């Protein structure tokens, strides 16, 4: 037991969690906490320029490192500004712990007290309940050690997700006898880690009988570090692997069994082969609408094995034949061990042949156009320049889908994108977070001009805090994905999508003290990227692309996988 203030206890608890960095913005209701941080050099505070970006940066940090990201904001608008970032982390199961200031919980007869609509009071517990895994509001300083222990435990275990801790000012200033424990027990929270042996047996039986198995590997594979196990199973079964956006990178995309992305903008190989499969092994994925398209046309003939640590995901969207509620790595290990002992050699060479054939056909699509400054070409060029472990973040929209389709990822945690919430403006702050987690790795944000404008103010953060990243702005002066839908489904009626030719991104970057350049050819692009990834300051590369570029293949909203189109003419 040690006597200290609530604010000191928070910092002590953060140190015990080995938190090295906090992304945040100070304000009135967190002054006591920031006063302690002032004398805590072991924890680096990185000031974002908008709280949303503090949350995205913590998210990017968490995804790149596998460790929890921490963000912090004051009460009221500081707290509400975090919400988009928290909701984004929730949809993509990223472990972040968000701290917010709050007005006093107790202050006799004070108007500056919870419930009295005090200055900068917001009900952030009420607001974030549907977008957090859990949230807490310790009303007394003495509750802080236990609350923080639980918060980090919940954020990082089971299916990870954001946890918010709202800190009333009195809980920061009061002193109390503090007891820090190493153990944590929450009676309503016991994630199921080990797979049920009977379910594993059923899965193995299905896989052994299968002639055309396919693996759908989602973000859960990355979270549980199960890529090696996934690779061995895929090779053992000769099963091709397709990944929804969140799973990109969990399986090397240059592997002969990789089919690339699946879903609304999946590769044609993925879309074709998943329809031919007789057994679908789905791991750590939640069958989102963007993955499946129309549900009754999704794998109608395949038996489905679904492994997920969150039991609520099983049967939520798609009916499954063999549900397994457990950790992906543990389950894949168990399946592999059982498979190796039973599998005869020479498993279905016909299926392997078919996979090669379909991939071969799709070659043209993957190779992209030959003209300069076509996005597929740019992505392929970028892949050639970047080392294998480079981290790529994306914004949301066409830029994201071009990156998903044409930029090959080889390793887990090297592709960071807003999958579930689809948050424009996520990529840049997330890449700052990723760079903080992996300072020796080049980090590139593939952006569109619309998305980048939503969080471009973080150039200030990246310059002042010396966190150099590269931003590639695929600049078509339009909200490209929406324009694509208007072009294809609304008769080219371009409603409210034109962005104009402002700003001059190179000049904008320079105004912040960053590097900025505009390129006019593939050669200039390569040169600029090579320079940027070595630069000690953030570089914005402005790449003008055509106003009417489309992302294909595409499965129009509401259609099934069979409704895939590969050009505008097919509509």
């Amino acid at each position, binding site marked *: 037991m040690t006597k200290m203030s609530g604010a000191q206890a928070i910092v002590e608890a953060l140190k015990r969690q080995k938190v090295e960095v906090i992304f945040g913005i100070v304000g009135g209701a967190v002054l006591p906490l920031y006063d302690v941080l002032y004398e805590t050099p072991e924890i680096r505070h990185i000031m974002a320029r908008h709280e949303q970006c503090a949350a995205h940066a913590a998210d990017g940090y968490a995804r790149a490192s596998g460790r929890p990201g921490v963000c912090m904001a004051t009460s009221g608008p500081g707290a509400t500004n975090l919400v988009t970032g928290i909701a984004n982390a929730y949809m993509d199961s990223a472990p972040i712990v968000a701290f917010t200031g709050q007005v006093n919980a107790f202050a006799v007869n004070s108007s500056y007290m919870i419930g009295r609509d005090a200055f900068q009071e917001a009900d952030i517990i009420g607001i974030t*309940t*549907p977008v957090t895994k859990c949230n807490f509001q310790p009303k007394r300083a003495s509750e802080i050690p236990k609350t923080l222990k639980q918060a980090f435990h*919940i954020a990082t275990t089971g299916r990870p997700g954001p946890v918010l801790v709202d800190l009333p000012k009195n809980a920061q200033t009061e002193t109390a006898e503090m007891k820090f424990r190493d153990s944590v027990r929450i*009676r*309503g929270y016991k994630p199921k880690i080990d797979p049920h042996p009977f379910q594993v047996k059923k899965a193995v039986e299905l896989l052994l009988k299968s002639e055309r198995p396919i693996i759908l590997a989602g973000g859960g594979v990355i979270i549980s570090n199960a890529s090696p196990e996934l690779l061995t199973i895929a090779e053992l079964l000769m099963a091709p692997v397709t990944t929804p956006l969140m799973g990109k990178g969990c399986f090397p995309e240059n592997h002969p069994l990789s089919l690339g992305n699946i879903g609304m903008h999946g590769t044609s190989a993925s879309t074709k082969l998943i329809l031919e499969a007789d057994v679908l092994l789905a791991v750590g994925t939640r069958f989102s609408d963007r993955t499946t398209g129309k549900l009754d046309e999704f794998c109608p003939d395949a038996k489905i094995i679904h492994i997920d640590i*969150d*039991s*609520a995901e099983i049967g939520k969207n798609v009916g499954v034949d063999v549900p397994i509620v457990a950790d992906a790595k543990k389950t894949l290990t168990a399946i592999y061990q059982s498979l190796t002992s039973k599998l005869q050699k020479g498993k279905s060479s016909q299926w392997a042949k078919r996979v090669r054939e379909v991939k071969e056909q799709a070659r043209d699509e993957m190779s992209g156009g030959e003209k300069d400054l076509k996005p597929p070409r740019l992505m392929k060029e970028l892949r050639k320049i970047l080392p294998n472990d480079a981290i790529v973040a994306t914004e949301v929209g066409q830029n994201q889908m071009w990156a998903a389709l044409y930029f090959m990822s080889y390793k887990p945690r090297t592709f960071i994108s807003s999958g579930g919430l689809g948050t424009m403006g996520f990529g840049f702050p997330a890449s700052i977070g990723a760079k903080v987690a992996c300072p020796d790795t080049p980090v590139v944000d593939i952006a569109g001009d619309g998305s980048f404008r939503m969080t471009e103010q973080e150039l200030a953060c990246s310059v002042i805090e010396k966190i150099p990243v590269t931003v590639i702005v695929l600049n078509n002066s339009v909200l490209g994905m929406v324009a694509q839908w208007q072009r294809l489904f609304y008769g080219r009626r371009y409603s409210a999508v034109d962005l104009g030719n402002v700003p001059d991104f190179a000049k904008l970057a320079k105004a912040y003290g960053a590097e900025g350049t505009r390129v006019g050819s593939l050669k200039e692009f390569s040169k600029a990227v090579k320079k940027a990834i070595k630069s000690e300051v953030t570089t914005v590369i402005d790449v003008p692309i055509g106003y009417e570029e489309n992302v294909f293949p595409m499965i129009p909203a509401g259609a099934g996988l069979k409704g895939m189109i590969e050009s505008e003419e097919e509509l």
Partner: protein
Amino acid sequence: MNEKSHVIAAIVEHKPGVLYSVANMFRRRNFNIESIAVGPTEQSDLARMTITVNGDERTIEQVIKQLNKLIDVIKVSRLDPSNIVSREMALVKITAPGAKIRTDVINYANIFRARVVDVSPESLMVEITGDANKIDAFIASMKPFGVKEVARTGITALSRGVKSVKIEE
């Protein structure tokens, strides 16, 4: 679609905000709460929620899974309607001016084993306990007299026998 009414018992942390997070989950996931009754249990730090929900099998399964996912929800059980005692209480205020009407209302109340708990020159208040059907039937029989106000508690239920929704420590 085979929509039926289901009774779910949830043992939850007895602390502020839990009812909010449960109710909020129902709203957010597009489930409908038919009724909910909440009260403390034999353990002072636990509360019991008895929730009735309408829906098909798949919906109920999701409701239970999503409830289980909430950190402050400790245990969720689906009660088997053929093996439970379920009760609801209602207070019903009936327009009853004059002796004749009063006698009629009291006679009905006796048939339903309900009790008159308040009286005024213009009205009677009746307390009735039973399963939801019985209360529906009583209220329907009072309609001709004029039902002024109804307050129902929602169903609360326990399974029969020695079995219980237990919390392992």
